[in-house]
Structures are given as structure tokens and as C-alpha cells.
């Protein structure tokens, strides 16, 4: 009842959905259901709330001081509809942050972004690799933000008094990658900074960029950034190819 495509070999060269076969001209039942399953996983990743309890437990072993912060986006729907609200802290959170204001080399922010599971799955492993490499630096309490956007890291970094801020954030889920984490690094974080002042490491997940590699790359970028006193488009990334790329 279905026609297989007699060119299966092509599938070796790409993860794209090729050589799917067909029922008439349409998707076969198994391919249709595979697509719908993957979309269901991606949708649930977007809508899921960050499990703070679980995340704190996982981070517990690392012996970090943790601050929990909220943005002005109250619900997932509001967060998705109004990106501007995810870039501003609630007043209470601003007050909390001020209590820890000081002079730090590095601030670390974890935000759910568009995939809370990306943070739950990848952030603890990443920090386990990354933090031991930062022993020379004075690090601010780690902030965990619910319903946060990338630009929020500027406000947090400025309030804490950090020379540099990094934000680990859940990326917009792809159909085949619902749990991909990105890291944004900004030198001299100030409210109102724009995106060209940041460097980004993307696609950190099982099956994507390994946390160990992302950690090494970030250390390289941080050192370069401190040396040149800038970040963003003018900080060229010469760290080298990602593993597995041809």
C-alpha cells in the first residue's frame, strides 16, 4: 500500500527527514505519527514550567549560593505573548538582588527561556564542567529565573555588580531537538545592551554540542573577552570547529 523510496543510502548524509516513502503522494502512517509525536514533545517543552525544586537538588552538589528570581511575565502564555515582560524583573526580585550587590568577576544566570527541560537536563552537567575552571574568579550567587529572556542578564549583571555575565537559557525547541540549551556571554552587562554585544554558544544538548566542549569554549571566550575588554561581534571566535563537523 505504500511506496518506499529506493534510495535509502542518501539518508546517511543528513538528519533531515528525507527518504520517507509515501502512501500515494502523502506521508505514510508511521511518518505522520512520528512527526506529530516530535511536535508534541516540542510543544510540551515550550509550555512546561521550570521544576525549581528538582533543579536546586541537582545543583546542590556544586555548593552554590542560589537566588531565585521572577520576571514580570506571570504565566507561560504571557511570557510567550509578551517578550518585553520577560526582560524585566519583578520589584521584589530586584530588591533581593540588591542585597547581594558587590564586585564580582562573573555572574551566572539560569533561565527557562523557551525550554525549561533544556536547563534541567543540560545546566547541571555544564556547570560541573565549567565551574572548576573558574577558581581564579570571584563568582556572584547563581540566579535562577522563571520566564526569563536573554536581555534580562544585563539587569541582573548590573545590579549584582559583575564584570561579565553568562546566561544559560532554553532555546526555541526544534522538532528534533526539544531540549537544546544556549549560553549568552556579555562583558560589562548594563541594562539596554543590545544583542550584538553578546557571544552565543548554541545547540548544547545530547546529540548536539556536548557540555564539556561548550564549557571549554566558554572559558576560551571569557578569557579573550577579559583580555580585550569587550564581547559580541568584535570578539572573533577562533576556538575552532565544533566536534563532529566536517
Amino acid at each position: 500500500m505504500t511506496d518506499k523510496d529506493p534510495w535509502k543510502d542518501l539518508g546517511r548524509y543528513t538528519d533531515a527527514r528525507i527518504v520517507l516513502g509515501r502512501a500515494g503522494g502523502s506521508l505514510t502512517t508511521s511518518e505522520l505519527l512520528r512527526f506529530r509525536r516530535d511536535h508534541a514533545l516540542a510543544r510540551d517543552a515550550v509550555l512546561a514550567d521550570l521544576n525549581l525544586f528538582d533543579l536546586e537538588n541537582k545543583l546542590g552538589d556544586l555548593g552554590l549560593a542560589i537566588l531565585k528570581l521572577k520576571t514580570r511575565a506571570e504565566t507561560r502564555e504571557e511570557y510567550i505573548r509578551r517578550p518585553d515582560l520577560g526582560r524585566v524583573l519583578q520589584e521584589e526580585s530586584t530588591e533581593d538582588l540588591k542585597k547581594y550587590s558587590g564586585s564580582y568577576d562573573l555572574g551566572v544566570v539560569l533561565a527557562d527561556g523557551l525550554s525549561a527541560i533544556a536547563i534541567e537536563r543540560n545546566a547541571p552537567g555544564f556547570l560541573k564542567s565549567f565551574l572548576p575552571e573558574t577558581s581564579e574568579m570571584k563568582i556572584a550567587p547563581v540566579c535562577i529565573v522563571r520566564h526569563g529572556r536573554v536581555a534580562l542578564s544585563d539587569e541582573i549583571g548590573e545590579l549584582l555588580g559583575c564584570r561579565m555575565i553568562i546566561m544559560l537559557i532554553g532555546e526555541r525547541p526544534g522538532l528534533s531537538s526539544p531540549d537544546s540549551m544556549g549560553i549568552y556571554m556579555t562583558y560589562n552587562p548594563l541594562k539596554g545592551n543590545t544583542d550584538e554585544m553578546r557571544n552565543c554558544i548554541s545547540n548544547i544538548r545530547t546529540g548536539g554540542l556536548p557540555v564539556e566542549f561548550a564549557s571549554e569554549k566558554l572559558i576560551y571566550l571569557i578569557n579573550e573577552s577579559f583580555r580585550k575588554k569587550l564581547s559580541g561581534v568584535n570578539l572573533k571566535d577562533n576556538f575552532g570547529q565544533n566536534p563532529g563537523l566536517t
Partner: protein
Amino acid sequence: MAFKASAGTHSFTFPDLRTLLACASPEKSGDQMAGIAAKNEKERIAARIALADVPLRSFVDEPLVPYEEDAVTRLIMDDFDETAFKLISSFTVGDFRNWLLSYETTGEVIAGIRSGITPEMTAAVSKIMSNQDLILVSSKCRVISKFRNTLGLSGHFSTRLQPNHPTDDLKGIMAGIIDGLMYGCGDAVIGINPASDRPKTIHSILVMLDELRQKFSIPSQTCVLTHVSTTLELIRNGSPVDLVFQSIGGTEATNRSFGVSLELLEEAHQAASELSRGETGNNIMYFETGQGSSHSANANHGIDQQTCEARAYGLARHFRPLLVNTVVGFIGPEYLFDGRQIIRAGLEDHFCGKLLGLPMGCDICYTNHAMADQDDMDNLLTLLGTAGCNFIMAVPGADDIMLNYQSTSFHDQLYIRQVLGLKRAPEFDSWLQQMELLSGDGLLRAGNHLTHHKLLAYDR
């Protein structure tokens, strides 16, 4: 000049034309976030009632962004043809809708006055039109464009083959192209969005595409969708560039945020024309647009996202493009919240583009944080197929693994051809038959001859 209308017991006043247009717009999350949308349905319908009485002449006399301040306004005004406008010059927006729908107003009649229609007129009339109105009027308008084949003929429907790869791996891209050709895709263009903007990478993709096209004499065109300045540099260095791609918007400030000016587009258009690579015609520009880009760039001048989008078509029209593609759901739910808003926007964009004489296609798409799913895309595909859309995207399995969004697939184009009897560009259709991939009735062939098909044996 202020506009007044009432709905029920409420009366509303709209201080100027841009406010009236924004309030008359169908609900869009982007206009709401920008604070310019109608506050409720009463205000929206009052705005529509008032808008229906606005003379078309107002859009010529009162530019939404002043002539002195904005290069897109200047282009629209300078291209405006008063003589062509004459036939509709006494119309209100409401009259214009009635006229477009009347039996006597054929596609030829509309084509005859196109140069007297401005983007703002199309946006205005679309706001008082239902979805079926948009489909009906669009279906009257055929816009034909040519480079190596003939696109946009009545009863025909084309696809851009879009086999992107997250690391621009050449073998990965080629695997997607071969699979797509076996499914009969790629007559609009074989077009790659590169992950990298390095000229060296772009050059190697362009060379690979050109060698494939020449090897099999494929009657289509190829494109790597990189910034126009990069394409210009590549042309000067001898890369095989068929089409010049660029994303554009409806205000000068939007285009500045894309790093584009009118002068730069003209320079690239000139450079690509001089290559004389076209065979059936010389439409060489490929533009992409999408509602919300001006909002996102803080460059909307208080104008609603759909009117900004129509203004981008005014810019596109100036260059007689081969392809204009509204990438309707890519921008995300903060601008088009759900399937309903995406579908409406897709119909509006196609309508406005066609009315202005553009070869409109649509990337029928959504991201995973939008309240939409593949059924919404099926709906929009069916509606746009009925409306006479020129082309859609053909993405492997509808899942773009580089751009991380969902569009339409190789299988989707087979579906719409089957239910609506739509054929590919004639040159491409003949080629597929010669290649023994397509039967005379336009259906894909199956069988043992495919196992050793020469496309599969192609080794770069």
C-alpha cells in the same frame, strides 16, 4: 483629519489615517504588543466602518510616513501612476472592495491599473475584506515571472526546494536536493539558507548547485539566501549567481536594520543582470518579507504590521522580482499568535502582493512556541492553493533542521497538486517526465527504474 464611526451605543474617533488602519486590522499579537491595535471588537468594527468611507485618493495625498523622511515612501510615490489610477480615483475603500469583487473586474482589468494602486490601498481594502474575499480577488490575478522557466501560469503551482543543513555540509545539502528532485520539487528555485555567512562557504554551495543544474539541464534556478552585500561580492569574484536574495521591510528604518538600502539593492540588481544567466526571462530578484519585521526593528512609525508588510511589496515591485515570499509564521507568536492569525496574515499578504503585481509565494510556517500545528498549515496551504499562490516551500518532512521551524513538505505539494489539479512550471514538468520521475498525468512514478536512477548515481 479625524475619522468617526459608531458601533452599538459606542462612538469612536480615530485621530489619523494610521490609527484608523491599525484599529481596523484583524487581531494580531504584534499590533497589540505595539499598543496600536483596537482595544476591543467594537472599536475594530467601528474603525472598519469608518475606513470603508475613506477615499482611495487619501492614501496618495497623505503618506503614512512623510515623503521627506522615508525612502520607501519616496519609491512608492515616485512609482505611482496617476493615469492608471484614474479608473478608481473616485472610489472609497468600500467601493474598491465592491469593484474588485464584481464579475466585470477581471484579472486583465486589475492588471491594467496596477501601477495606480499603492500598497496602502491594498492594505486598507484587505482590512474590510473577509478571507473568502481575499481568496476570490487573488484568484483573478495571475503574475508570471521568468528566469529559466515560466512561473505563475494559471493552473500551475511551484515549489522552492529548501534542503538546509545545520553545518552547511555539502553532502547533506545534496542529499536533500536529490530527494526533493525525486519528489518533483524545485521549479521556483533550489534555494539554500546557509548557516554560515562566510563568502567561501557560500561560494562552494553555489558552485555545487550550478554543477548539478548544468549536469542534468534542470530548467530551474539556484540561490543561496545570504545578505545582498555578500552576494554582490560573490558576483564580483565570479561565483555562479542566478538570483539575488534579500529580506526587505516596509520602512527605510526596517531596511536599515537589515543592512539594506535602495542603492545597495539597485547595485546588486544591476550586477546580476549583467551576468545574463536567465534563459526564458530576466527576473532576477528573490525577496523575502513577513509581517512584524518593522515592529521588531522598532521601525513601524505607528503603522500596523500588515500595512508595513504591504509597503515592503511596493519596494519589491520596483525590481520586477522572480519570487516574493512572505515567511508568514517564522517571526513567532509575539507577532502572529496562533494558527488563526497566521492563516489570516498569509491570505492578506498573498492578496496584497498579487494586487500589486508580484509573483507571490508563501512560506506557510510556524515555530514551536506558536499556538499552531501542521493542521493549520494544511488549512493555509489549501486556501492559498485555491487563491492561486505562485509557490510554496518544499522542506524535507516539513522540518527545517537548520532554521528550527516547520514549513510545508515534499509530500504537501503532492497533496495540493492532487486535490486542485495544479501542475509544475511547464519546462520543469517536461524535464521530470524526461527523467522518468513523473507520469503524463502528473503523478510521481514508482518502480524499479528508480533504483538505478541517474540522479541517485550523481557523485559531485
